[in-house]
């Protein structure tokens, strides 16, 4: 009887039920409801769906013809590339450099990780002040260096750069910490052996650190790409309504714009479905590309 209690797994299911109910109520039910709502006509946020759209798939047809959807998809893909190169790439370089210094590792870990703990909205406001057209810090600096014309950092041609720079900067520290933990797990004996064989620092990095970091880099890449799909608060704080000229919309901000600003809730639901589909497809693609190796 005493041993049976460990073989009987039924009590485990009892403990799983609350979490399952929570997920079903706050994730799966809204998700299914969202798919249904994307086919319905909803007058405004909070209103119940009254009838099906005519045709019922009308929102999806509209999406294909909506130039802003294509803009937001393009910007989201650019954001993914930026996060991969800008966040993971810079994090690798920083991690390798910090790993090679003798003292002050903890200091740099703290300094690089710090932006993660600041709310994205606060960072958005901070960068708004930095990039402000009149009296912004960057324009004042440029003015002091002799530039006579103010630069509109939020103008159409440059807005995407201004939006992505802080997003990139914010998460470098996150991947840096993951990567430096991965580097710490590499045995010092390997480096010592390489040094005895006459390997240079670059050769140690190229033939020991990077290959053994492969799986960690893969994990970071998957996190970065899927994370890029969810970026919302900082871009919305800095560029509400896709300003200027709706050129800075991301899929998330465009969905929010239609749901909360234009009151076109059912179209917002259809955009949410698009985001989910995009997320699933891209996760599969990224997982296939950055497949982890067994050592």
């Amino acid at each position, binding site marked *: 009887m005493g041993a049976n*209690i460990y073989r009987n797994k*039924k*009590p485990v299911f*009892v*403990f799983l*039920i*609350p979490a399952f*109910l*929570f997920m079903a109520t706050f994730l799966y039910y809204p998700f299914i409801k969202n798919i249904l709502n994307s086919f319905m006509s909803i*007058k*405004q*946020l*909070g*209103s119940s769906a009254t009838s099906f759209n005519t045709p019922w798939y009308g929102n999806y047809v509209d999406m294909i013809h909506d130039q802003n959807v294509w803009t937001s998809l393009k910007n989201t893909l650019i954001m993914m590339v930026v996060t991969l190169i800008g966040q993971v790439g810079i994090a690798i370089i920083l991690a390798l450099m910090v790993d090679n210094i003798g003292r002050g590792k903890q200091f740099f870990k703290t300094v690089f990780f710090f932006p993660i703990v600041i709310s994205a909205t606060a960072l958005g406001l901070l960068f708004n002040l930095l990039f*402000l*057209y*009149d009296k912004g810090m960057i324009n004042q600096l440029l003015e002091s260096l002799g530039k006579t014309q*103010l630069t*509109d950092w*939020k*103008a*159409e041609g440059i*807005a995407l750069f201004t939006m992505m720079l802080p997003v990139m900067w914010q998460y470098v520290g996150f991947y840096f910490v993951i990567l430096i933990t991965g580097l710490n797990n590499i045995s010092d004996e390997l480096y010592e052996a390489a040094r005895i064989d006459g390997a240079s620092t670059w050769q140690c990095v190229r033939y020991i650190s990077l290959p053994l970091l492969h799986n960690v880099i893969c994990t970071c890449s998957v996190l970065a790409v899927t994370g890029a799909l969810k970026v919302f608060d900082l871009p919305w704080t800095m560029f*509400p*309504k896709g*300003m*200027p*000229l*709706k050129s800075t919309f991301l899929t998330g901000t465009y969905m929010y714009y239609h749901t*909360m*600003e*234009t*009151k*076109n809730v059912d179209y917002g639901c259809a955009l949410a479905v698009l985001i989910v589909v995009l997320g699933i497809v891209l996760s599969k693609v990224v997982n296939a590309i950055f497949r982890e190796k067994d050592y």
Partner: protein
Amino acid sequence: MKKRIIAALLAGLMVVSVTACGNDNSAGSAGSEAPAQEAAPAESAGGSDSKEAPAETAQPSGPVELTVTTTFAGEDGNAQNYKNAVKAWEEQTGNTVVDTSATADETFKMRVATDFETGSEPDVLFFFNGADANSFIEAGKVLSIDEIRAEYPEYATNMNEDLIPDSLVDGKKYAIPVNGYWEAMFVNTEILEAAGVEMPGENYTMDMFKADCEKIKAAGYTPIAAALGNIPHYWWEFAIFNNQSPDTHLEIPESVEDANGQAWVSGMNDIKELYELGYFPDNTLSATDDETFAMFTDGKAAFLIDGSWKVGGIVGACQSDPEDPSTLDTDKLAKFDVTYVPGKGSRKATDLIGGLSSGYYITRKAWDDPDKRAAAVNFVEYMTSDEVVPAFAQHAASALKNAPVVDPAEFNELQLRAIEMMAGVTTLTGAVQDLFQGDCRVSTFDGMPEIVTGKVDAADAVAEGLDAYHNQ
């Protein structure tokens, strides 16, 4: 077996603890046998003319917590007056107000609509009385003044009935107005002097305005402070008004082809012309309204079309501490003036946009709560009393029957100039955008940058908006 029972109990406890988080009354109501007793109705509402009103009118049985949402927040000139009035009412009655006020923008309107839809509306709401209120009036979620008077006969009797706007839904009166509004053109006179431009007056025309803008631009200043990519609302309104008359301004076109529709298209094209002439800030498409307003107060832009609430914003910008009126820099404030919006065609410069567009609603949720009904009535009576309203109305109109004589000593220089300017107004017309709500605005409000840059034709944008309006 015992362990299974304990496991089941623990799991059940977890479920209860999760669900209890979302249930306000779970503990209290579970054990109660009888529903809460109805409070005795107040004997009389009365007291419409006294700050002592709460003592003799609607009286709640004990201290009550009222949730109140208003637009008296942010840069609204009455934000501080509202705080003071609420504090005084709280001290007088012992009740408390949970203030959820916010700046009156599209997000705020959306929030209010959503609150009503989801049953989390406030007890008292100070909100617009135009099309913005249609959804919750249609749903019967607020009480008409007549309905309230059935129990509190003296409710809002200090107001001039004719000046309380009717609902667009059923023609009944729901919201008791406090202060009216006007929209006019603020001027930074320092820039005008530097550019050699005369202060605009009552015969100011669009052609004169353009000539002045050219001089201001040549002097190195930005003529117009406006963020077309963020808040094009005021220019949208007056540009359309300039192609109509006060008689036709509130008529929403049936189609883009009819006379009114063409007037709207011409209005959009007028803004486009000003943009192409370079009279708006260089970053007008990417700036926020706060940024362009700062340009105006910092002496970098000359003209600003905005509402009467902006008087408070300008005064605040002239104070070293925006919360402390005693820190007002009167010399700086003297550099600002307010005048009429340049006219065109049938619209004279002195024909302005304005009226009593907002008021206090009592929600059915508060009315049906026996503890809150009297307190909500009492609160609105206090906030709309003859003593409180003048503090809010200031240089704008009110609906009071007995409007008190204003003491000029109580006003700052800009407020006095506003009073002087308002004395010359020939007509005051409501804003057509108050009737043109929802996604029909998107093509010409959010789409203004596309219109002025020529990416979208003005006629197409207007047609798209009108289609959305007529399909609502």
